[in-house]
């Protein structure tokens, strides 16, 4: 859960439409309309990165009248699906994925089960990436990938599909770095040998979730309406 106290604003007139703010926005809150940046307040998670990035120095953060709470509660989704997704990704449910907001992996997984289909949507739903925006990314992408989402690079290098985890290290890699503590760390972090290399969710797996596409479509529609 993240409590968002600030929102980005800008002077529209001098905006050159360079898109640099759009590229670094973690929640898809900025889009370019007629070569000007437009910020959707309800999607902004207050990270301030656009303000720092703007080469024209025409953006700033302002305090929200009321803080915006971004969260996906456990009871909003089927917990068995959340647990299965975490297991597939090899991520412990209680670990803080976003260490700036202390958002646990279980909440990120819940957002995906609820319908988030890319990194922007996960961030917008949970407030993840409202802080440093860096260390939480790979686990979130891995959870998306485990759910069968397309994590390939979107336009504007917003993210790259990098989700390698300890569980994916091949025998060849282990042999190349015999002092890499791979087996030792696996024994520490997965003593019960539950985690496997990540394979994208199979059609059969996704068939177990018949309402997923509906949820994704509904979420996309909601975002379009918000805009």
């Amino acid at each position, binding site marked *: 859960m993240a409590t968002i106290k600030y929102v980005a604003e800008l002077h529209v007139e001098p905006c050159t439409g360079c898109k640099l703010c759009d590229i670094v926005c973690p929640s898809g809150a900025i889009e370019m309309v007629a070569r000007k940046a437009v910020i959707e307040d309800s999607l902004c998670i207050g990270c301030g990165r656009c303000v720092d990035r703007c080469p024209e120095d025409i953006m700033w953060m302002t305090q929200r009248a009321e803080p915006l709470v971004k969260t996906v509660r456990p009871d909003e989704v089927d917990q068995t699906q959340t647990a299965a997704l975490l297991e597939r990704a090899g991520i412990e449910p209680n*670990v*803080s994925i976003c260490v*700036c*907001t202390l958002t646990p992996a279980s909440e990120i997984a819940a957002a995906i089960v609820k319908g988030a289909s890319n990194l922007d949507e996960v961030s917008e739903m949970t407030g993840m990436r409202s802080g*440093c925006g*860096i260390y939480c990314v790979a686990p979130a992408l891995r959870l998306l990938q485990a759910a069968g989402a397309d994590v390939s690079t979107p336009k504007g290098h917003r993210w790259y599909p*990098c989700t390698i985890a300890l569980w994916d290290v*091949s025998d060849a890699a282990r042999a190349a770095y015999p002092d*890499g503590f791979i087996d030792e760390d696996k024994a520490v972090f997965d003593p019960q040998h539950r985690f496997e290399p990540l394979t994208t969710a199979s059609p059969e797996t996704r068939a177990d979730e018949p309402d997923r596409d509906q949820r994704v479509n509904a979420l996309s529609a909601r975002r379009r309406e918000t805009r």
Partner: protein
Amino acid sequence: MSTHAAALMPPTFMPSVYGPSLRTHVATLPSMTSVDVRELFPGIPPAITSGDPADLERVRATTRASLANVDMSKITPDSSVNILASEHGFGLMGGWPYAEMVKTLREVVVEHTGCRDVRLRLAIYRGFQEADEVREYFGFDEAFDGKVKGLGPFDRGVQVDTVIGPMYLVQRAFDADLFIHAYYDDPREMYFNRLLYKSFKSFCMSYARFETRSVYHSLFGNRSGSIIPRALFDSEYIQAKYTFSSVLRTAPTGVIGIDATDDLYAIDRRITRSHLATYGRMQRLFAEIGPCVAVWDGGRWGYYLHAGGVIFGVLLTSGLDAFDLDVPVVAGFMQEPGNPVNFTRNKSVRGIVVNQAWVGAGIPYITMPFSSPMYIVGDEQAALWRQDSANPLLIDRAAVVPDIEAGMALACERGDTDKIVVFDGSYGHITCNQVAAHLLRDRAPSVDEHVERELLPKWLAQRGL
């Protein structure tokens, strides 16, 4: 043993939009003194520079000497070469020694190879304005004929295939035919990197996209993560462009030399040996301090401010021996099942008084105020913290105090301690109050012996050294 003496001044630092207006240093207070690192551990070699911009001649001469036998044959007059510099070097003794090494590096490469297209790439972390600040403050535009660009984790990436899979580096770092790894060996977060192939870390951090940084931090353990920078360095993509490394060598006393060769693995072995013997002693001495108040008083992120060459983060995690590889996790994002706490906290740090430091580290302090109450000096600084999205709840748990004396008094009273240790960017000495100075001097001999006889042999053996 020295008696009460005025504290030495810390290095000057670069002003920045990410920190408050410059304040008077805590070292100027009459209650403060300095403890010389070599008084504590006489075996640690002395520094070759004070870090002052007027005292860089030996850095320049040592850089030139270290480069004399480096094979630069890959670089031709027609080559383009990027010198890759990383941000934390500019927080080391005020940054001037590292800047001098980088400038000298360019001069020597031009002299030896006839290559004129030598560019500087400044890798920064999160603040997009930091590279411009560094470029201007250290005079890099003049030194590099304007061929200077910053780069950060949000810039366009390039896929690099490694033995453990594809990862992503920042394209701008490698937009020349060749590159030089211009590094520094400050071990900084020794509780995370554990001195396991630390010399390679830039390849999964400074030069890398945020996804790669995230994989390194969040999807591997402290120890196993060390294969990521090595896999990137050993990749065909990097090896095709790599020429050699030049590393600013440090000890807790300060800059002690320059190590340059194309064999980064050899440099790393030398650094690891040296660091275990020097920073290893300081790490264990910090664990002896016990209840204390820490003060942040420098021009970098508080977590990374030095005292006696050791960053604050080490004090905060000093409950466990960071160099003992039998300990699987000291502090990190990946944790054992059932343990949701990302960073162990030294509960002996009874308070943190922020006289001056950057905000927006992205090294979140969110859980720190639970165990170590924070005291922010001044309303201007409090306003910066209030808007710091990387630490959204910190200011809610911190007290704003009018001045540093009030902050330290309140922190000591509430923390029931009389020891104060100041992290003001100092190498060579620790700024602290008399009580802390007495304790450091008292404990150092036993730490010295314990490290020499028991810990150092174990640490070296664990690393095959």
